[in-house]
């Protein structure tokens, strides 16, 4: 009996230390990691998508100018299959007034980037939903079955972060927003091309979109789908147009920012590369879209609320970095 008691105590202590160390060593902050750091029910908007979400929408600028808070459930090259799972996941912690779903990653369905899978699941707390996402992504990937175990136990990957602890723990995000300072001059595409290219979604894309729309309707959620400003080839443009048709047929809203002139995106100055805006483009995009959100949804202004002071601090950290990296003040952009 004494041996059994000691064994149980030993394992309880082990699990506590293990979880504690696991938390300390899991130090690769990304937008989703930042999402989970926000207090429960403190976000007014949740943005889901790929880098076209967290590089485009400056959450701290939107807060500074309109007072509402935005969480980024976004990750690099996010596979489209996870959309409905992530909607479900966000609702466990947040009850936002509106969800924004970025369609810029509709072509990511092949799951061939191991990092893209890890950046989603590794950040999520252990739950049935996480298991379901992991199973779904692994089953549709080219990852060897014998390596599946690594995805269910993220400690197997992150236990070795201790040797680069100081570099890895640096958080370069501002409440989920990533500042990209570089500028590449890009040749813009013709606006009228958007009407010419319509192709069909494949079964994976279609299933992902259908499930997401069904979930939105079942749960009666306010959602805006967005098409980010960037350069699209004809295939990607075709996917976007096909997806737009399905979404609009279901009476949901889609905004294609490539066709909005008021944004005034300068392709010679406002893009980081052909696929992403830089901080100058992101500022224009955020100002336009944040104003739209404020005008169309009942979003609270938290700027006088002390509970939200971390947002002000992060905004100040952002402006300092902006000045340091580009030489500009936010007012000058």
């Amino acid at each position, binding site marked *: 009996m004494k041996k059994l008691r000691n064994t149980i105590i*030993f394992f309880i202590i082990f699990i506590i230390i293990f979880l504690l160390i696991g938390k300390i060593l899991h130090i690769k902050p990304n937008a989703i990691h930042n999402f989970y750091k926000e207090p429960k029910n403190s976000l007014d908007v949740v943005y889901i998508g790929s880098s076209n979400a967290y590089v485009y929408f400056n959450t701290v600028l939107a807060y500074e100018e309109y007072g509402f808070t935005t969480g980024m459930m976004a990750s690099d090259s996010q596979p489209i299959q996870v959309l409905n799972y992530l909607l479900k996941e966000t609702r466990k912690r947040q009850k936002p007034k509106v969800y924004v779903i970025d369609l810029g990653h509709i072509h990511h369905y092949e799951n061939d980037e191991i990092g893209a899978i890890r950046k989603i699941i590794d950040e999520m707390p252990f739950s049935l939903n996480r298991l379901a996402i992991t199973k779904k992504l692994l089953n549709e990937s080219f990852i060897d079955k014998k390596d599946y175990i690594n995805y269910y136990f993220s400690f197997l990957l992150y*236990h070795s972060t201790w040797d680069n602890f100081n570099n890895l723990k640096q958080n370069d995000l501002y409440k989920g927003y990533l500042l990209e300072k570089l500028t590449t001059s890009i040749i813009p595409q013709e606006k009228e091309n958007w009407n010419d290219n319509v192709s069909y979604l494949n079964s994976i894309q279609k299933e992902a979109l259908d499930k997401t729309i069904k979930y939105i309707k079942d749960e009666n959620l306010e959602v805006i789908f967005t098409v980010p400003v960037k350069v699209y080839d004809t295939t990607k443009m075709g996917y976007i147009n096909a997806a737009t048709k399905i979404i609009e047929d279901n009476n949901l809203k889609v905004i294609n920012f490539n066709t909005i002139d008021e944004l005034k995106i300068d392709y010679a100055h406002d893009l980081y590369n052909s696929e992403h805006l830089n901080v100058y483009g992101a500022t224009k995009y955020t100002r336009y879209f944040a104003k739209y959100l404020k005008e169309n949804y009942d979003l609270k202004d938290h700027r006088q609320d002390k509970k939200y002071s971390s947002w002000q601090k992060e905004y100040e950290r952002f402006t300092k970095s902006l000045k340091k990296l580009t030489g500009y003040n936010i007012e000058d952009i």
Partner: protein
Amino acid sequence: MNLTTFSFLLFCIITLLIYFIVPKKGQWFVLLLSSLYFLFYKDFNIGTLFYVLVIFLAAYFSAIFIDKYAHKKSAKWFLIGGIFLILSQLILLKYVNLFLVTINHIGSLFGQSINLEITPPAAPLGISYYSLIMISYIIDVYRGLCKPQKNPLKCALFMTYFPILTSGPFIRYPDMEKKLYTKHKFNYDNLCRGLIRILWGLFKILVISQRLGIIVDTVYQNYSTYSGLYIIMAVLFFTMQLYTNFSGSIDIIMGVSKIMGIELPENFHSPFFSRTITELWRNWHITLGAWLKDYVFYPLMKSNLIQKIGTKTKKLFGKKVSKKITLYISMLIMWILIGAWHSGEYKFIIGSGILQFIYMVFEDLLAPIVKKGCKKLRINPDSFGYKLYQCLRTYLLFSLAMIFFRASSVSNALEIIKNMFIFKPGFFTNIFNLGLNKANFVVLIFCLIILFIIEYLQIKEDVIEDLFTQNIVVRWILIYALIFAVLIFGMYGPKYDQTIFIYQQF
């Protein structure tokens, strides 16, 4: 199945659960099924099955017939037949190319260009281990040390007992008979001690050996870039890498077997505290050395040929010299076989065989001179300083021979030795550019110090037993430290390549 993978962990958990759940009389059968699964799960094909079956049937039937015709001349023929059949499989799979390369070399000496080469089929897992184990089994039956196992399934379990298939140790039937087939109750103390042993093995492999391997691989693969001190460091590190990898595997194996209540013979006993190469080999791969002594060296010493040589040399050089000559001839044959056992390549025959033999002969010949020298110079051979010097000298000599073990060929080893003496500046500034950053290097050195302390303590006492005499707080702190050292500093998971078990390839 690699010993540090989740598949192996899962395999052990399932085996142990079934082993202790089934009725006690069926335990050995559970072990047999697990062992056969372990042996064949990766490469089950007609070829593998054929080689394993030939070895098994040769050993099984020759042992039975040896016993049946005991004390008759035919028993000897069954013994020779059994050994021949087993060795023929081993030679066919592992040593054919050694013979062909030798023929090619001899041909080139006489100006003939012969290019004989064949690709032998892949050898089944553990064949070098169970071939010798089964040879010892039939010899032991012949010598009357044990009765043959008439139940073929029980005999198959002795041959394929899964813990020994990857890295040994060499087991003997008279020692294992009772342990393998008797009933074992679950024992909490065995479980705790077994788990600690497994953890210690994982620490050696994942924390130390893998780190050393990174530096060793970097330098050995670019030996022309890294000369002088880099090569010296890699050479010294490789010996430690080999030891932690091999003895770590043995620790895991012993731990698993201990949990089942089956004690296996120890294969290492703090070898790097040995003062001579002879002593080192008494503490390194102990069961292989003992096997070769019992089944090759002593029979060779008693053989007609050696006896005849002894008689002739006695007439020519006197009794003392003649004794040395016969001893050295037998030793040379034994050491060539030890080298060849590793693989059918000359680099092993030289590194793990002939060089070790040369060291021992010199130790033997120089012993009286060294003794006199110490007396004259008033050096106390039992002083700490002199012991330390002897241990370091032994380690250096052993490491030098191990260059052949690690190098890709004999000529590659000679190139590496040559480059050892070319010194380039900048060693201390580039030491962290060999694949391990500063943090990992510090962890490596710290863990090596811990390893040496434990190894030193192990000379006099059983450290695991000692741990269980400590009070619960100290004991738990030490166990947690070991667990988390493996979990945090272990080089496993998707970031690292798969662990390589050096002795699994033999």
